[in-house]
């Protein structure tokens, strides 16, 4: 009977796999993709396709060159690719997703060992890279071919003397929540579509509610209580910019977020506070990408020092006594 298989426990496994998880994330991103195409036209679809194809290509290429096992079937590069495109304005040139994908996949992800081993979010890194490298292309928003300012950029001008809330001509709450006629990155404007994806991920148990909800709640509370230059519109600000996209899809990236519930709470609050600070006081109108990236840097420390209670572990005092 040498065809008998011997293995260690357990002998049964759950059905979930890396591929199935990534597939779920892709499905959850579809409503936002559809809305992106609806708002920004076929160019949005083109950028998304270029981005996904080049992400997968660079992953394949790197693994080919280094003779590592090919991992493109786990679909994580597809997720990264979609998110890179989601984080660009529709006015971006066709080559920008390619450069971004190369940076995300090769520098941010594969050099550190590939899936699960990178320490910063690859898609966000691509965005930060593109933003710093080609700032004007990355901050030119247009809807139906007309350049517009994003609600957050408008709000940002509040700190200049003489600018009042009324003079800003902000879009309505319904507009920012649905994304109709709002300038922004391809995937970020329709909060409703992103929420649908969130619910799907929750139902499929791909992510827990903790990071997104606490993140958004922190931003909401800070902008309601403290506000900016006299304006306290937490309910409005949470729908602006990339908060939903970031909180639901990027802050939750397994690889770059903490492991334990307690750690996740600290991380989400940190993201929220930084987002608020950058939005209100920083150079950039939007702080989601950078706040997640900055908190990514702290994840190893959070994972190291914020661990759950071990079953049956003695309280510290007792342990000391015992020793």
């Amino acid at each position, binding site marked *: 009977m040498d065809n008998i298989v011997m293995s260690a426990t357990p002998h049964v496994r759950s059905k979930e796999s890396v591929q199935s998880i990534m597939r779920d994330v892709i499905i959850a991103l579809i409503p936002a993709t559809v809305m992106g195409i609806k708002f920004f036209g076929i160019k949005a679809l083109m950028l998304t396709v270029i981005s996904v194809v080049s992400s997968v290509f660079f992953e394949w290429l790197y693994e080919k060159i280094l003779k590592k096992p090919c991992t493109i079937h786990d679909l994580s590069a597809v997720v990264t690719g979609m998110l890179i495109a989601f984080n660009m304005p529709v006015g971006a040139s066709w080559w920008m997703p390619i450069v971004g994908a190369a940076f995300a996949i090769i*520098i941010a992800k594969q050099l550190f060992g590939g899936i699960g081993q990178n320490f910063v979010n690859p898609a966000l*890194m691509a965005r930060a890279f593109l933003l710093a490298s080609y700032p004007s292309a990355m901050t030119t928003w247009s809807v139906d071919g007309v350049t517009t300012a994003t609600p957050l950029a408008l709000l940002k001008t509040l700190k200049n003397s003489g600018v009042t809330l009324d003079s800003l001509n902000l879009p309505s709450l319904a507009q920012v929540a649905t994304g109709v006629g709002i300038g922004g990155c391809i995937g970020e404007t329709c909060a409703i579509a992103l929420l649908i994806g969130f619910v799907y991920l929750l139902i499929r148990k791909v992510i827990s509610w903790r990071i997104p909800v606490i993140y958004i709640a922190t931003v909401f509370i800070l902008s309601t209580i403290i506000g900016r230059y006299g304006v306290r519109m937490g309910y409005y600000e949470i729908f602006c910019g990339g908060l939903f996209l970031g909180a639901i899809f990027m802050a939750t990236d397994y690889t770059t977020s903490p492991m334990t519930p307690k750690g996740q709470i600290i991380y989400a609050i940190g993201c929220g506070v930084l987002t608020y600070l950058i939005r209100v006081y*920083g150079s950039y109108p939007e702080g989601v990408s950078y706040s997640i990236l900055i908190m990514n840097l*702290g*994840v190893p420390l959070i994972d190291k020092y914020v661990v759950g209670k071990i079953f049956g572990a003695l309280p510290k005092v007792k342990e000391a006594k015992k020793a």
Partner: protein
Amino acid sequence: MFVRLILILLAGIFVNNYILSQFLGICPFLGVSKRVETAAGMGIAVIFVITLACAATYLVYNLILVPLGLEYLYTIAFILVIAALVQFVEMFIKKSSPALYQALGVYLPLITTNCAVLGVAVSNMQVGYNFIESLVSGIGAAGGFTLAIVLFAGIRERIEFNDIPKAFEGFPIALIGAGLMSVSFLGFSGLIKL
């Protein structure tokens, strides 16, 4: 006044981070960042030395060099003061408290030849901070160094056994990692304007 001091402090830690945007003290940042505990020890030692050095160099500059019209000698004067100070503190700690020496003193020789210390002293002089501001900006700069090196050490611990290409092992991947950190820290830019 107090608010300004706080802002100087925070600006040093986050916005003008010495490591990630100013490039001062990179050698120990790359070298002593393999373990979080060591990195933290180094960070605390740097805070200690920089604070002392800021005070000492401020006094030397304003009480000796400026009155004598010898501003151009600041480099040599500062480095002498810093080196003597650090060496003395090291010897003192080594003798008086071996425990403190293990925790802090061992990092001291490393700090003499750390750009950050001289860098803060010189830039304080160039900006023209007063005594208190000089101290606070020193603490801020050192705090920024500590923040960066501790975060970096956490990251390096995590990637230590990763599947990194041979040519990138060691310093190259550390540099790339520092680059990614530096990109992330761009997010702080403009947060505080002095």
